[in-house]
């Protein structure tokens, strides 16, 4: 089948990397794939992943319109980042398709979109979450407060779910909301990912030091400060651990973490972003990788999967996606007793190279069998077949909605009961007598 795949293309996007695997798998299975890059025009000059084949930019309306009209299936890779996924939002309504949802919490995506579409955003908030939520949604003082207030009450999962013909997502914990919002099928499929440098463990770190690694943007939810405290609380760890941070980090975070490390007498190495080769080297050198999240907003963690594919022992927070990982493949820590739990886990791993070796091996074996692109591609094409029936009516309704928009309708005039009821025939099969 002909697939049009919307995805961020720039190298900085882990989702983009995942998509290259899926696109190659789809092609290997005999499908024709056109990739449409969904990031802001301004980001198009950044280094991009290699998708092979035809790549369009979402803002090329004519070419994308033609591709979408001729497609058997349109797929959107959606994550909680407006700059990276703006193209998905622009096309999702006029070219209904399948959404591959990477984050259940989409508050940042929604918030940025809302600034360009205030009236529509208000309608969306009110219809999914009610007046009370809508009235306070934009009034939170900072990012942490915003996440805290809205992660449960208004995660915006329903907003995207309601626009999709069907959703593929990567763990179960947020799927309930999708089932309620999306008229089509919801499937949970393991997120495909890869270990580009191969999975052969080279050195086992023959230095006496204990290398702990955290990869990715250094945000508070990665719990870096907790790791520092946990190491600092343990004399054995404190004396032997080098804790390395690889990933984008803000200057004031460098300052605060450095201060914390000094207080706790922990050896912290801050690397900022590294190129591929250097990153692979850092992973190779690591004895343990920490993939902590609190709060956890994502459907799955590419970095945790990557670490497992490299055969590394991984420490995760026992929540959401991570709880679904097998107990014998990762070490899970209790978020409500975080530092003590972390300290125990790190000490365990420090004291037993054998434990590290076994955990890593089991993780690698399990990850290789689970996070597969060919399986994911098959799920995409199966869902495409399922939803192909829903598409014609939805495309027609979308065209009518666009006409109303052109005529200046501000609200959803198609939802008035006299107007909407006759259309149920196309979605639910209508009533025997009306």
């Amino acid at each position: 089948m002909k697939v049009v795949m919307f995805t961020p293309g720039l190298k900085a996007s882990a989702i983009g990397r995942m998509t290259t695997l899926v696109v190659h798998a789809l092609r290997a299975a005999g499908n024709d794939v056109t990739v449409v890059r969904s990031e802001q025009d301004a980001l198009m000059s950044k280094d991009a992943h290699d998708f092979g084949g035809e790549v369009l930019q979402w803002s090329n309306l004519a070419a994308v319109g033609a591709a979408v009209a001729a497609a058997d299936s349109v797929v959107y890779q959606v994550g909680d980042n407006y700059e990276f996924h703006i193209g998905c939002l622009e096309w999702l309504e006029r070219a209904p398709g399948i959404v591959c949802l990477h984050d259940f919490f989409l508050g940042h995506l929604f918030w940025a979109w809302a600034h360009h579409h205030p009236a529509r955003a208000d309608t969306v908030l009110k219809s999914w979450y009610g007046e009370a939520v809508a009235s306070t949604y934009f009034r939170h003082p900072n990012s942490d407060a915003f996440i805290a207030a809205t992660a449960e009450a208004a995660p915006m999962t329903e907003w995207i779910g309601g626009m999709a013909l069907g959703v593929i997502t990567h763990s179960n914990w947020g799927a309930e909301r999708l089932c309620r919002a999306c008229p089509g099928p919801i499937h949970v499929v393991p997120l495909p990912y890869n270990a580009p440098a191969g999975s052969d463990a080279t050195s086992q770190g023959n230095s006496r030091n204990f290398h702990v690694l955290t990869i990715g943007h250094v945000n508070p939810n990665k719990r870096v400060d907790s790791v520092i405290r946990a190491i600092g609380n343990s004399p054995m760890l404190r004396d032997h651990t080098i804790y390395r941070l690889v990933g984008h980090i803000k200057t004031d975070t460098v300052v605060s973490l450095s201060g914390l490390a000094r207080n706790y007498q922990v050896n912290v190495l801050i690397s900022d972003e590294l190129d591929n080769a250097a990153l692979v080297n850092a992973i190779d050198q690591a004895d343990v990788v920490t993939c902590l999240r609190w709060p956890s907003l994502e459907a799955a963690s590419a970095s945790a999967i990557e670490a497992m594919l490299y055969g590394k022992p991984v420490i995760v927070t026992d929540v959401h996606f991570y709880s679904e990982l097998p107990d014998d493949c990762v070490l899970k820590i209790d978020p409500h007793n975080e530092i003590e739990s972390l300290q125990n886990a790190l000490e365990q791993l420090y004291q037993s190279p054998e434990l590290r070796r076994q955990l890593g091996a089991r993780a690698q074996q399990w990850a290789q069998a689970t996070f597969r692109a060919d399986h994911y591609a098959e799920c995409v094409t199966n869902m495409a077949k399922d939803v192909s029936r829903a598409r014609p009516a939805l495309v027609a309704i979308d065209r009518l909605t666009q006409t109303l928009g052109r005529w200046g309708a501000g609200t959803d005039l198609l939802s008035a009961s006299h107007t909407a009821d006759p259309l149920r025939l196309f979605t639910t099969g209508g009533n025997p007598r009306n």
Partner: protein
Amino acid sequence: MKIALVSSFVPFLYGGARNIVEWLQTMLEKEGHQVERIYLPEIDAPDLLFEQMIAFRWIDLSAADRVICFRPQAHLIRHPHKILWFIHHLRVFYDLWDSPYRGCEDDLRHRGLRDALHQADTAALKEARHVFTNSQVVSDRLKHFNGIDSEVLYPPVFDADRFHTRGMSDEIVYVCRLEHHKRQHLLVEAMAHTTTPVRLRLCGSSSGTTYPDTLREQIVRLGLQERVLMENRWITEEEKVDYLADCLAAAYLPLDEDSYGYPSVEASHARKALLTTTDSGGVLELVRDGDNGFVAEPTPQALAQAMDKLYLDRGRTAAMGERALARLDELNISWSHVLKRLLA
């Protein structure tokens, strides 16, 4: 009662599809009902289909006590008392999907559209209080594709009393549009194989194709100018009544048509035997071989044999003509029956 008759139409294309609606309107008005006729434009293009169907769903005919829907996709209309006199599906999405007529790619997108159409049609059909069709062929298709049970309600001709018999000449008439799928050429070919002086008259208009020229050439090539008369023009109602009144028998042998065709019913009212073929489709619901006519294999030789039989055994031909009229009653082909069933 206030009755709305709804059908899809193409402006300026007339014929069978409109006759059934307009004749029904006249008969209903004769019975004292108030009738409103609604014709809605429709094109079968796949990418435009669903928007048009949505448009049909928004039509409000609540002022009517009852709504009767005919050609597709008129059956999408909403009404608490919806009756369907279902003439045909959008066949390229149904039984003609695997044929050269499909007109779109057989890819996932269009198969999805086809399946969505089947679903929508089925749901709309289920809304009806009663589903009638114009032939068993169509009823079978409704059952097979949509799981819907229906009652065959044969369409009568208008003002059937004008048809009568006046005698039997040597001439078999085929009063019908001159078109390839009506297969006048098969009869001309058959004439070359006849052994009796039986004659053939082909009369009807053509829609600007080269078919009539092909027929003319064929007649000349086979040396049949003396025995085959061709009138390529619109035949008036009066002329048709006359031709049927005087003819030996009437032919109607289209290739696999759903419905029996008005010509066969008109000939039956004129008490004339019918000539058709085994692959003509719905007309076989009317014609029984040896009873009210002959059903021949679709070969020139078999048709020639049947034509000679009609010529030679006139007694039998006349008797079959009487049976043709009686058969109309057997199948309830009458306006009184139609009104009774539609207004039940």
